[in-house]
């Protein structure tokens, strides 16, 4: 029982981080109808950047976030403008998957050349600290990560609902044609949206680097989990992605603490298959494109 509750606590805390990463993914899909297979690689890049800032300049990864998010924002914009925008619309859905996949591998290659393949982690002074509440252990890092994720998601929510840009994004997501008529520049929204998705990846990357050892190849693991989360939540639903993130993380953590850590690696895949078998549109899936 103890192990179970410990697993749940761990899962919820980790779920917050994955929720942040998944929200960026969902945002990009909502705006551009593109599944960004490079999201995992962007998180890892964010982790590497935070790592570099920490080891070279002693900047705490949480404090590095403002720097890394800005850098990655422009990287995201660049990726959209250079690689995705030139696609003709009829090719877009088919090719965007492959293109973002290629971008992921490109990032992986660059990272492995720049930092080689040794596993890294960001070892701050508080990296191993933990509180014990009612007999359950709560690692400090995870707690801060959770708080940060909530904060970032809150910021994202404010951005989407209170700013002009956010309004434009929501309009584009719901009805691209009307949005265009109302003067919303779809291309600009797409580029900025992609940048925003990359920025969320940067923020998540700082946290990721604190929590897990990583190297350039870690993005496969990450993107697989993110995709399972997105499918469970329902492609296109930000709220769904957040809930799904917590569900997947919690399930993994429960399996890890009650069965074995090796099997927890498979949990997200099992969940993915179950979702596709039982309810392919996910928990809160929006109407699929195609059809009418």
């Amino acid at each position: 029982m103890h192990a179970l509750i410990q697993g749940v606590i761990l899962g919820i805390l980790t779920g917050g981080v994955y929720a942040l990463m998944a929200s960026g993914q969902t945002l990009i899909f909502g705006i551009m109808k593109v599944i960004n297979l490079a999201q995992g690689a962007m998180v890892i890049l964010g982790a590497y950047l935070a790592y570099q800032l920490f080891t070279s300049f002693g900047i705490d990864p949480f404090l590095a976030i403002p720097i890394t998010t800005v850098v990655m924002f422009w990287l995201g914009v660049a990726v959209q403008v250079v690689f995705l925008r030139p696609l003709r619309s009829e090719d877009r859905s088919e090719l965007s998957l492959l293109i973002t996949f290629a971008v992921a591998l490109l990032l992986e290659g660059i990272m492995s050349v720049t930092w080689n393949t040794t596993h890294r982690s960001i070892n701050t002074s508080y990296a191993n600290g933990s509180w014990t509440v009612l007999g359950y252990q709560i690692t400090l890092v995870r707690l801060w990560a959770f708080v940060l994720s909530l904060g970032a998601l809150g910021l994202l929510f404010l951005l989407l609902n209170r700013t002009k840009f956010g309004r434009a994004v929501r309009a584009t997501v719901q009805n691209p044609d009307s949005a265009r008529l109302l003067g919303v520049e779809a291309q600009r929204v797409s580029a900025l949206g992609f940048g925003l998705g990359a920025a969320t990846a940067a923020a998540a990357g700082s946290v990721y680097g604190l929590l897990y050892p990583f190297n350039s190849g870690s993005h496969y693991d990450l993107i697989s989990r993110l995709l399972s989360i997105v499918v469970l939540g329902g492609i296109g639903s930000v709220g769904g992605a957040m809930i799904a993130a917590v569900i997947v993380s919690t399930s993994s953590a429960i399996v890890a603490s009650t069965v074995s850590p090796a099997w927890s690696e498979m949990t997200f895949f099992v969940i993915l298959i179950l979702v596709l078998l039982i309810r392919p549109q996910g928990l809160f899936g929006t109407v699929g494109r195609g059809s009418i």
Partner: protein
Amino acid sequence: MKSLVRGPVFFGLLIVLPLFGLQHWVLNMLVFVLMFAVMSSAWNLVGGLAGYPSLGHAAFFGIGAYALGSLFKGQTVSSGYEPFLWLPVVGLIGALIGWPIAVISMRTRADVFAIVTITFLFVVQTLAFNLHGITGGAQGLALPIPPFPAATFEQPYYYVLVLLLSVAMGLTFGAARSKVGLALSAVRADEDKARGIGVPTTGVKVLAFSVSVGLTAMVGGVWAYYQSFIYPQFAVDPLITIAIVLMTFLGGRATLWGPILGAGILETGQQYLAYELGGSQFYLIAYAMIFLLIMLFLPRGILPTLVERLRRRRSSAAPAPAPRMETAA
């Protein structure tokens, strides 16, 4: 017809080539070119003809490699040809694993399919490292050493791969000429419409995928036997996926010869560079960059672009056709 001449000539050349006393590194390169030609051709069935880009084919390469390794674990071979005879079983294993994957992931859309395949790749990679009993984990798996004479060591593998290539190309050719190809083209053009007019969309997609991964698994088996010792990071390597996708795109998706052309160009390039550079990180960057450039500047691939150019030149030489009129039937 021209196409009926090209095939036999091509295969005739392939069959005769090793008899010219080529150097080992050339033959080795040809073996790898053939491997990728078969795999690209196989990928083309599902990624080109059906329009469903699978990102997980490398997983089935690995499954085939480990399947053959498992079948021959701890055994010796007498003539050396036994593993080849078991290849169809390896192919069947690949297809049988691929079938449920296809049924689950191909029911909705191509994005979901890509998600499942890339996740599956990662899962298989993890299993390859962790299932020590079957795969030997990170320590690797040994296969029996064949008693082939050193001078002509590559030849049996070479010819088996030529055979597999003829199968792959034969299937592509046959598919295009049959209603399966018509159905796949409809799926690729407008799947919802196709489903709406009664085309058995799920059926043909699943069939294409199963055949495709079965072939890929067989190539994995040949590779495993060729290497005699396989490690999980090379058996289940995402680089293989991007290589075959790139080769198919470069040569021209949904064409018969495109994947072969792409494999010929890229794999010879890679093998040559392997001598000069070495180190797989650069391959990753190189492949990814080339892929992105192809996507941007040559999205149809070489063959279709050439065909289109020729057709345009021919039509500009001919007298202009009569203007199309609305048919007043």
